[in-house]
């Protein structure tokens, strides 16, 4: 291969030899970026799955966009020489860090949040990866995670040739979700399970379900729970155990409904609602396990598309500005939020308040009464939200300190994959003219939908 020219691409050398394909470095006069050519192994006697999987990758890759996938450049069909040329992402795959495990919990959370961002983006593009593992994760220089290898992926608007051609579930055993072991390939929360297994491994240095060699062993995870991470490493905080074990729930509906919600928890440890999962000190007793094994509630294939499922579990953020708001407007804002939450049980709510800081940071966080303003605002947010009657963990509270209110809200929405922002409008037109409109700026620049609540003819 090296030295050959295929459709204008000059093959330099072998970058990686995998089980199903070989990766070569290539150059092309028209493309000024590092590139890889992926060529499937098509030798006699090779697993036919290798061909179908490459075919799927050829269908899926040209449709993917954004920073979390390698940019697609070109491909060649099976009638001549099959290949895919894509952007080469610099740096080492996450698998290179396996030797250094366990990692400190903050680093595990940061990696998890970056990968969850990438999964959220992928799921919004109708794709389920189905082979999330350290070797398939790379990072751009800015820290964004990139998911590679779409050979086992499922695309909801394309025929799934892997599903029908082969009986065996394909995937990587230590990270494979229980429903994947049953042959279900249409569940986006399978990726959340895999990421949970990865986080478990990175936090404890052990795999949650070992590395069974047979399908029977893989299916054990349908009823046998993993050793709680804190039992293996007591230094792991309860919130991280809560997050990891929620990802590893047997039934997809008990996991995080979306990767965006998982990323949110990994970025706000202090806001994770701790339940029995956080408290667990040992695996479930044999009686419980036996009961599960024989009265097993198996995951079933979901009928809703991934995007419908994601849309049912959005992250809503409401910005509450106590200084500017009458009680009427505060109530109207709450009503609006209540309506939006009522129709979507998977939704969660982030309540925001911006504490303005002076540009010259001689500002003190203590006011004249000596009360901590930050804490006071948090308490006021919780008070505002109390009539909503939300279950613990469904709402979180955040006081942002910033010089510009609109910028603070916008930054928050971008960093936390917020789907919908709700805020009240300043009532008086005079004030708006003098101070500028926060809601106007947020509505114009937000990366998501924005609802502005205003009292009719109010003042």
């Amino acid at each position: 291969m090296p030295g050959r020219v295929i459709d204008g691409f000059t093959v330099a050398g072998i970058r990686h030899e995998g089980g199903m394909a070989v990766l070569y470095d290539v150059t092309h006069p028209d493309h000024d970026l590092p590139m890889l050519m992926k060529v499937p192994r098509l030798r006699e006697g090779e697993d036919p799955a290798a061909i179908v999987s490459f075919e799927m990758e050829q269908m899926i890759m040209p449709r993917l966009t954004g920073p979390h996938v390698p940019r697609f450049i070109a491909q060649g069909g099976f009638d001549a020489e099959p290949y895919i040329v894509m952007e080469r992402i610099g740096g080492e795959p996450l698998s290179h860090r396996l030797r250094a495990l366990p990692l400190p919990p903050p680093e595990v959370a940061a990696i998890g949040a970056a990968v969850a961002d990438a999964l959220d983006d992928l799921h919004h593009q109708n794709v389920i990866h189905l082979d999330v593992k350290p070797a398939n994760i790379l990072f751009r220089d800015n820290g964004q995670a990139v998911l590679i290898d779409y050979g086992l992926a499922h695309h909801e608007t394309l025929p799934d040739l892997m599903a029908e051609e082969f009986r065996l579930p394909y995937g990587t055993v230590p990270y494979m979700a229980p429903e994947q072991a049953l042959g279900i390939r249409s569940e986006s929360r399978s990726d959340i399970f895999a990421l949970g297994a990865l986080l478990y491994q990175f936090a404890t240095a052990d795999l949650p379900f070992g590395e069974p060699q047979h399908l029977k062993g893989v299916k054990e995870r349908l009823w046998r729970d993993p050793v709680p991470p804190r039992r293996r490493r007591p230094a792991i905080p309860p919130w991280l155990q809560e997050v990891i074990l929620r990802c590893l729930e047997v039934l997809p509906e008990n996991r995080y409904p979306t990767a965006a919600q998982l990323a949110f928890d990994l970025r706000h440890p202090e806001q994770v609602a701790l339940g029995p999962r956080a408290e667990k000190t040992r695996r479930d007793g044999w009686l419980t396990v036996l009961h599960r094994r024989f009265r097993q509630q198996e995951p079933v294939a979901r009928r809703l598309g991934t995007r419908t499922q994601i849309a049912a579990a959005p992250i809503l953020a409401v910005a509450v500005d106590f200084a500017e708001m009458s009680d009427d407007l505060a109530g109207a804002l709450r009503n609006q939020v209540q309506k939006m939450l009522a129709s979507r049980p998977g939704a969660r709510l982030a309540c925001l308040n911006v504490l303005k800081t002076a540009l010259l940071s001689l500002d003190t966080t203590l006011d004249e009464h000596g009360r901590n303003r930050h804490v006071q605002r948090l308490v006021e947010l919780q008070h505002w939200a109390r009539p909503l009657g939300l279950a613990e963990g469904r709402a979180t509270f955040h006081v942002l300190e910033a010089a510009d209110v609109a910028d603070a809200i916008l930054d928050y929405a971008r960093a936390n994959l917020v789907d919908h922002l709700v805020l009240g409008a300043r009532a008086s037109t005079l004030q708006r003219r003098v101070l500028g409109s926060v809601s106007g700026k947020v509505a114009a620049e937000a990366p998501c939908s924005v609802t502005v609540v205003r009292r009719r003819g109010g003042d």
Partner: protein
Amino acid sequence: MRLALLADIHANLEAFRACLDHARDRGADRILLLGDLVGYGADPETVLDLAIDLVAGGALALLGNHDEAALGGGSTGMNDMAATAMAWTRTRLTESHRRFLGALPLTEEEEGRLYVHSEGSAPALWRYVSDAEAARRSLEATTAQATFCGHVHRPALYALGETGKVTPFRPVAGAPVPLARHRRWLAVLGAVGQPRDADPAACYMMLETVPLVATWHRVPYDVAAAAAKIRAAGLPLGLAERLLVGR
């Protein structure tokens, strides 16, 4: 080359025009009408006039079972509503309409693509491809790399791989599906004039030929007008109602 494939128009002028406009706006180079121009709907004459013009301009038209029934006396296999509509349709056609229908071929093949109203194994028997087994029967009876048919009124795609399994797939409107060359495909078009998959919008396919990429489109049209004409013509009311709900 960009082909627009329309099947099961069923004398629904509003749906037919909406799909033709949609396809022209997206740069269709050629129109292919895969059978059942008439039957059920209230505009057989205008739809046929339009089809005759299209064919004169280079379009392809194939024979469907309703087109055949409109020519002959029989309505075997038809339910009551279909038979009533067919009897009415026959009274509307002129001699030139009959000549046109009588000259339509059952199948057409070009560059490894087979076009047929029902399916490939016995086109004149009007069998339905409603599942993977029926798709296999058609795929195994021909050498075409890709078969395109109508008749079922519900869009579907079947892939025959090297392992011999037939993979069924329900196409998503507006999402292009590449029909890779080393695999064999059978694509069922949805209906232009009488969709039956709970979506009343008209359905047709845009097909790129190099490489082969199929996109099923859903086109909203004035269903109320088409239904009103069916009622005004005294045709069975059920034929109007089903258009409104796509069943």
